């Protein structure tokens, strides 16, 4: 939203973020050179407090209630004596708001939430020496722009993956292999298309334009100047006329695909798996244009009431077995290098390119768009997240 005061302060902050200014690699987010609020870091982990409040993406902390076979929270509770209270969120914005409301110890934050959490002082730096399993985390996930500031880690990497295209195999012919299937002008599936309900979804449209309309000059779907944003919004407005509903509640998407109210749209692997387990004939694929995606980090709240249990949880969830379980259930590459030997499907890590740093760099990870163009352009200003939020409201109409 364009408010002069807010924009000014955002610009100031972004200026601080850009700081030394020269590092602006694709998908890497802002350079990690801004001074984060001074929040003390934990020096040692003592006895557990008996419980821990976890804020997580759906499928990240399963206790067997969705599927009795899928349970890694109960072993954690038995091992540590920390009773886990889990709350799932649907979008990064929701996660940030819930963190602000307080009452949560750890959060699984994506790249479009991490810097905002750090800048607003909601999360504390993480003492990685206290997280024994941190040493096994893939090196290409450590000290990245979205999870560290000035070489100080603000969390423990969890895993990464891509947003997929899902469709009903009985209703959609031929099988799609391009995002064009959801952005086409007069799609045969009009009225049954679904999309993710968050401003960050604009990046999906930008990515499609990046591949199909080179004349726009989009280099990074999170670094859009006004003209490029307008083009993406135009594409989304075409799509809007054919959308049945936007989803942020993953269970609602599962239901919509089961009934056939939605037959094609963006999804996560975990949603596709859930829908299939409920006998919906769906398939999900990574389209040829590539995809937006996420790289998630477990962060600890600055106001945590159960910091010891929070550290125990972070250490547990990136331990080889638990990280393998959650990665296989959610459908993402695990952060822990040792997890690959422990997945039930031995080719899992190969499928998800878990150890493949080059592949990981090709996914366009969710990043908060800011005024300073993340693709390194100096001659123009880019649109920031508040403008994306505004644009998203206009798309929905």
């Amino acid at each position, binding site marked *: 939203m364009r*408010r002069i005061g807010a924009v000014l302060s955002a610009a100031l902050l972004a200026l601080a973020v850009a700081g030394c200014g020269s590092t602006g690699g694709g998908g890497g987010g802002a350079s990690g050179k801004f001074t984060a609020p001074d929040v003390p870091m934990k020096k040692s982990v003592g006895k557990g407090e008996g419980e821990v409040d976890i804020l997580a993406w759906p499928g990240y902390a399963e206790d067997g209630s969705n599927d009795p076979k899928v349970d890694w929270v109960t072993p954690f509770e038995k091992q540590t004596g920390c009773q886990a209270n889990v709350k799932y969120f649907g979008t990064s914005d929701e996660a940030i708001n819930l963190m602000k409301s307080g009452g949560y110890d750890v959060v699984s934050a994506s790249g479009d939430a991490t810097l905002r959490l750090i800048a607003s002082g909601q999360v504390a730096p993480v003492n990685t020496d206290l997280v024994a399993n941190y040493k096994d985390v893939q090196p290409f996930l450590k000290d990245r722009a979205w999870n560290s500031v000035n070489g100080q880690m603000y969390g423990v990497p969890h895993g990464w993956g891509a947003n997929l295209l899902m469709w009903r195999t009985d209703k959609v012919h031929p099988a799609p292999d391009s995002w064009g299937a959801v952005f086409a002008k007069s799609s045969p599936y009009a009225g049954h298309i679904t999309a993710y309900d968050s401003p960050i979804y604009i990046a999906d449209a930008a990515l499609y334009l990046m591949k199909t309309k080179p004349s726009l000059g989009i280099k990074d779907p999170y670094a859009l100047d006004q003209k490029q944003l307008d083009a993406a919004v135009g594409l989304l407005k075409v799509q809007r006329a054919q959308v049945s509903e936007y989803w942020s509640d993953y269970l609602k998407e599962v239901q919509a695909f089961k009934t056939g109210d939605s037959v094609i749209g963006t999804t996560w692997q975990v949603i596709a798996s859930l829908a299939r387990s409920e006998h919906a004939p769906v398939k999900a694929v990574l389209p040829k244009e590539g995809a937006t995606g996420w790289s998630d980090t477990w962060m600890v709240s600055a106001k945590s009431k159960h910091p010891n249990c929070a550290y125990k949880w972070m250490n547990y969830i990136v331990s080889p077995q638990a990280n393998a379980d959650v990665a296989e259930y959610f459908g993402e590459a695990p952060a822990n290098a040792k997890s690959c030997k422990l997945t039930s499907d031995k080719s899992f890590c190969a499928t998800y390119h878990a150890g493949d740093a080059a592949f990981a760099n090709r996914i366009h990870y969710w990043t908060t768009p800011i005024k300073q163009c993340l693709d390194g352009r100096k001659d123009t200003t880019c649109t920031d997240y508040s403008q994306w939020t505004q644009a998203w409201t206009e798309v929905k109409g």
Partner: protein
Amino acid sequence: MSVAAALHRRPRLRLGLLLAPPMLWLGVAYLAALAALLVTAFWTANSFTGEVERTWSLENFRELFGIGVYKTVTLRTIGIAALVTVVDAAIAFPIALYMAKVASPRAQRLLVVAVLMPLWASYLVKAYAWRGMLAEGGLIDWIGKPFHASSPGFGVTATILTLAYLWLPYMILPVYAGLERLPTSLLEASSDLGAGPATTLRRVVVPMAMPAVVAGAIFTFSLSLGDYIAVTIVGGANQMLGTVVYANVGAAGNLPFAAAVAMVPVVIMLLFLAAVRRTGALESL
């Protein structure tokens, strides 16, 4: 000197003490909250961290009136609320008339219970039930099949249907109460003077029941105006004022702008109530 005796001698003090708690409740919990909302609307939120910045500005309102999408959403919301009210009035009037003037006292009691019954079930259960019915291959599709009709799908129509169902009791009860007060002798007099049932309905019953209908309309209109749950469940991709407020509080973290948007239904309701006052319906609430 006992407290009781002191209070007995000072009736004003007695009255003051008696009225203080409800007045405090009204003042602090209700009016102060409304005032806080109004004040917040003039602040701004930092676009990066979402922290509220307490500097005065009219930017939220400028944005609210300057950007076309909010006008669209406001008009859609008013349209939905108005249609829900019309649908409810059309359904509620015959039911209330039957309850008040035709049914036996026993049937009357049963009907009142039947009308109130849906209020015992959770709002969410009812809204999700409508989602199931309106879904592809759901109950409405199934019933419509022999007639080559299909469910309207999720969207504005579905929202109007669901809200009209949810708020129907709030329309029936005031209309029923209003019609019950209508003396039967008036209906007899009308027929003695040669008016047929249709004329009696048009010239006697409807004008006298109008304030009660308007009273019911206050409920259905204001409840629809603020709704954001039904529209997220059955409204497809459509937004209403409530969802814009919710998105700004819950997702974008822009509390000040949400407060500014929340002022819109307040203003619409004030205008609506001012119009209603002229019909005298407020006296029959």
